[in-house]
């Protein structure tokens, strides 16, 4: 079996989520990577992709039509290339989730979304594990389709090494611009901090932070000291303390850092679904019965407004 992995890239670099998708794809068989994009950016992303351990070949589709991963243009390209492959694997990022189902429908196959496990170590496995009901249940499903299309949850698979490989680049062309859609712009969240989904430490705040100003006063100094990314519960996002792209949970980002510090987060099911795979979870909350304590490795019951500044001052970094 040979799998084609959709490479997510930005500014000529391969994004980390792709590396987990490569690991998952390697469980199915040989791995080729597809880089779709424009000009020099796409070429340098393709060159980076040749170095990913386990990737045997990189297909480069360089065309302005593929510049912003518009699914109307990229899906027909991928579907056309799939004539030579048995599986299409994309990271379960907003880009992968946008493109992969469109590819699956063009191939007339059912996609396996958000795969967290592949059963059977032998090549050609068709049994997959995926969360349903916001992670409240785990389904094991088998595909009967001729070709597989899956999106892979990045926190569930180790990242393939970004260096060490030496694949060749093959230029490919696709149908180009379908003329249905155009990219207008992106309002990127500017931050000096690590990205939530790849951060080693995350400091996350909940509704108990009271308002946007308090959220910033308490969370930012601690995150600065730890070099951490900042997350939030859906309640904090809905209350307007911080923008939605910081939301951790089933409806936001799924994270699994080395250390997750939950401040004033009660631990709603949907939040836990987004962070319960973190290695060490610390919870600080004034309510000793908050559900977050049922999954936290280390808990501290008390007043955030006293504890957090004290913690920030006592941590050496």
């Amino acid at each position, binding site marked *: 079996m040979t799998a084609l992995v959709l490479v997510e890239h930005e500014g000529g670099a391969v994004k980390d989520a792709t590396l987990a998708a490569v690991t998952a794809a390697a469980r199915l068989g040989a791995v080729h990577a597809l880089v779709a994009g424009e000009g020099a950016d796409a070429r340098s992303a393709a060159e980076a992709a040749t170095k990913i351990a386990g990737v045997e070949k990189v297909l480069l589709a360089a065309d302005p039509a593929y510049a912003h991963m518009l699914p109307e243009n990229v899906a027909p390209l991928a579907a056309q290339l799939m004539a030579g492959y048995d599986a299409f694997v994309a990271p379960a990022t907003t880009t992968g989730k946008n493109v992969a189902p469109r590819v699956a429908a063009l191939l007339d196959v059912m996609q396996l979304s958000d795969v967290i496990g592949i059963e059977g170590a032998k090549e050609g496995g068709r049994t997959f594990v995926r969360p349903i009901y916001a992670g409240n249940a785990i389904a094991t499903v088998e595909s009967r389709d001729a070709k597989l299309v899956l999106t892979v949850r990045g926190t569930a698979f180790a990242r393939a090494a970004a260096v060490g490989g030496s694949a060749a680049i093959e230029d490919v062309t696709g149908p180009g611009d379908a003329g249905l859609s155009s990219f207008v712009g*992106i309002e990127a969240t500017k931050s000096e901090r690590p990205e939530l989904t790849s951060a080693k430490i995350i400091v996350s705040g909940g509704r108990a932070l009271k308002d946007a100003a308090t959220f910033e006063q308490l969370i930012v100094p601690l995150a600065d000291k730890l070099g951490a990314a900042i997350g939030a519960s859906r309640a904090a996002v809905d209350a307007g303390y911080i923008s939605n792209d910081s939301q951790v949970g089933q409806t936001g980002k799924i994270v699994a850092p080395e250390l997750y510090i939950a401040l004033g987060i009660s631990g709603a099911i949907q939040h836990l679904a987004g962070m319960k795979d973190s290695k*060490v979870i610390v919870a600080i909350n004034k309510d000793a019965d908050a559900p977050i304590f049922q999954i936290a490795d280390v808990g*501290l019951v008390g007043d955030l407004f006293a504890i957090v500044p004290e913690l920030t001052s006592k941590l050496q970094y």
Partner: protein
Amino acid sequence: MRVLVPVKRVIDYNVRPRVKADGSGVDLANVKMSMNPFDEIAVEEAIRLKEKGKASEIVAVSVGPAKAQETLRTALAMGADRAILVETEEAVEPLGVAKILKAICDEEQPGLVVMGKQAIDDDSNQTGQMLAALTGRPQGTFASKVEVEGEHVTVTREVDGGLETVRLALPAIVTTDLRLNEPRYASLPNIMKAKSKPLAVKSPADYGVDVAPRLTVLKVAEPPVRQAGVKLGSVDELVARLKTLGVVA
């Protein structure tokens, strides 16, 4: 312009799902069911488009059991004009639903399809994208803002790195994210009125669509339980513990 709004009947957002003892699925007997929350947002968005004079008629569609009529009545009570139930007691996968919706689009010729980005039961996040592929139309997924202007719709999308804006030629498929709007509650008079709005009942066979599943569910299990750790008494103890665990210097 006609707007098509597919809606799904799912386990209520506030109910904690229980896995059946035999591992065959999630227990839905005697469990409160509601409209998928993302679909409620889609219905609301369609109604707002109608209120702004951009949409002329809203057609709600559901693929599901007879009881999905209740979900469609909710959509009608919120403000949809008529409804179509494609009745089947079997679970239909996203690809099958997309094929049925494609057939309905061929009949109804909507200018816009607005639907939830995912259902909160199977969490697939596929049907909108698949419908867009099958109809050969553009897709604006995970929408937090939708503006219809002439022959185009401009969609602001919630993506990992921020907010992306795309411009799509109509007809188009839009899938909703949480912050697009806050759905209204249906008023009692509107709930009464909804009872007399038209609701057509069809079957997948009426559309000539094969909805046989492609995936076999081998088992459904509870997620692994994470053990609660220790509660400490002071910040000093917390700092010491974090050092012992090796997660801070």
